[in-house]
């Protein structure tokens, strides 16, 4: 087998040699002429280049390289333009930068007007209800106007405060309450209304005094009690589960999961008025 394979390659070479023998090569005289021409060319100082020039060869024209280079330049140019446009040194106005958007900065007495204007400009019209003093009473949800009338302001802001302290409310419930003009917004039922200023509500909750904390503990029990009650409830729930009794779990809070619910944002101003914006 191995001899056969060796013979295969030898046979191929033998056949190759036979074919080479058929090849017509220059005669002695032609060889003499060739080397004499070679010597003459060398004596004339001509450079003797052994690389033959063939008609059958051609230099490739790499057009695709030019196309690739153009595409690369376009890509790099676009990337560079994007980088320059987004840089802080760009002269192109960038609406998202704080310097160009008065709504994105700190509110001071100097920039309050521009801040208000910026807020109005930055809110898309489809998300912000059209506000005017004429229809604000007809639609109590539109609480965004700055009103010097303390009564109206207090009433509207009271509605907002009432709605924000009831986190279990659904959107529909909120609208119903907001439509209800009989809610005593300036009464003590609306908690934490401090001079009709609902923005204090959050501050008051945060800065709760110790006696209020104690009152709340007295009303609801301290944390240990709450934990004990919860633990007891869990034990009862497990017992009921053991007894194959179905436990009805109350429905989850719809407010937290509802992202479409308009969330009020209070924007205090220097003159004591408050602007409420929903988004």
């Amino acid at each position, binding site marked *: 087998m*191995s001899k056969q*394979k*060796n013979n*295969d*390659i*030898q046979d*191929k*070479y033998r*056949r*190759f*040699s036979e*074919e*080479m*023998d*058929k*090849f017509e*090569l*220059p005669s*002695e005289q032609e*060889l*003499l002429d*060739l*080397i*004499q021409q*070679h010597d003459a060319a060398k004596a004339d100082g001509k450079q*003797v280049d*052994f*690389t*033959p020039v*063939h008609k*059958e*060869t*051609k*230099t*490739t024209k790499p057009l695709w390289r030019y196309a690739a280079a153009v595409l690369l330049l376009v890509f790099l140019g676009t990337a560079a333009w994007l980088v320059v446009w987004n840089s802080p040194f760009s002269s192109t106005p960038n609406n998202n930068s704080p310097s160009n958007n008065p709504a994105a900065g700190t509110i001071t007495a100097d920039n309050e007007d521009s801040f208000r204007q910026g807020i109005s400009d930055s809110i898309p019209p489809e998300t912000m209800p059209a506000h005017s003093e004429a229809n604000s009473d007809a639609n109590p949800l539109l609480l965004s106007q700055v009103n010097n009338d303390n009564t109206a302001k207090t009433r509207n802001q009271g509605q907002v405060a009432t709605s924000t302290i009831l986190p279990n409310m659904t959107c529909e419930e909120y609208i119903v309450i907001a439509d209800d003009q009989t809610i005593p917004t300036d009464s003590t039922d609306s908690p934490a209304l401090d001079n009709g200023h609902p923005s204090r509500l959050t501050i008051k909750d945060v800065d709760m005094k110790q006696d209020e904390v104690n009152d709340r503990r007295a009303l609801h029990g301290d944390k240990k009690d709450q934990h004990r009650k919860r633990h007891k409830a869990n034990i009862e729930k497990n017992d009921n589960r053991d007894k194959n009794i179905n436990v009805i779990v109350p429905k989850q809070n719809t407010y937290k999961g509802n992202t479409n619910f308009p969330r009020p944002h209070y924007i205090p101003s220097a003159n004591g008025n408050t602007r409420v914006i929903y988004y």
Partner: protein
Amino acid sequence: MTQSSTQNEFVAMIKQHERLILKVCTLFSNFKGEDLRDLYQDAVCALWESYPSFRHESKESTWIFAVSRHTILNIMRKRRTNEVLVDNEITDVSGYDESTKDIIDELRMAIAHLDPAEKDIFIMWMEGFKNSEIAETTNLSEGNVAVKLTRIKKKLKKEINIERGIVTL
């Protein structure tokens, strides 16, 4: 020795080993037809330029093989750098009939998997050079040449098996 007598002596030597030069031109290049003739003439001119330095200490065939191989490889390197050959066009103008083309292509394919040193050894071995002569040309020891020859044969067997669709593990 006069110039003409040197020329005659050189031409006689070339005529004696012209088939060896042609085989080296064929196996170390991808040229055929007129291109191969051009290459052959270039090899002859290079041999003529090197002839004054030939001291006749080695066999003429060994010297011719070494010089022509070196010349052809240089030419091929230059061509590869400067321009791209279109094989189809060369094949079209080769003037070979189909059977000759097949034989040359088969042999080229068989030895294409050898590295240049192995190719030298194989061609010289097929041309009937002794191991000592191959060793002198390739700057290897005779023992190393023998070992390399064995490996070359194994490699070629494997290639032939693959060519025939026989896979051995």
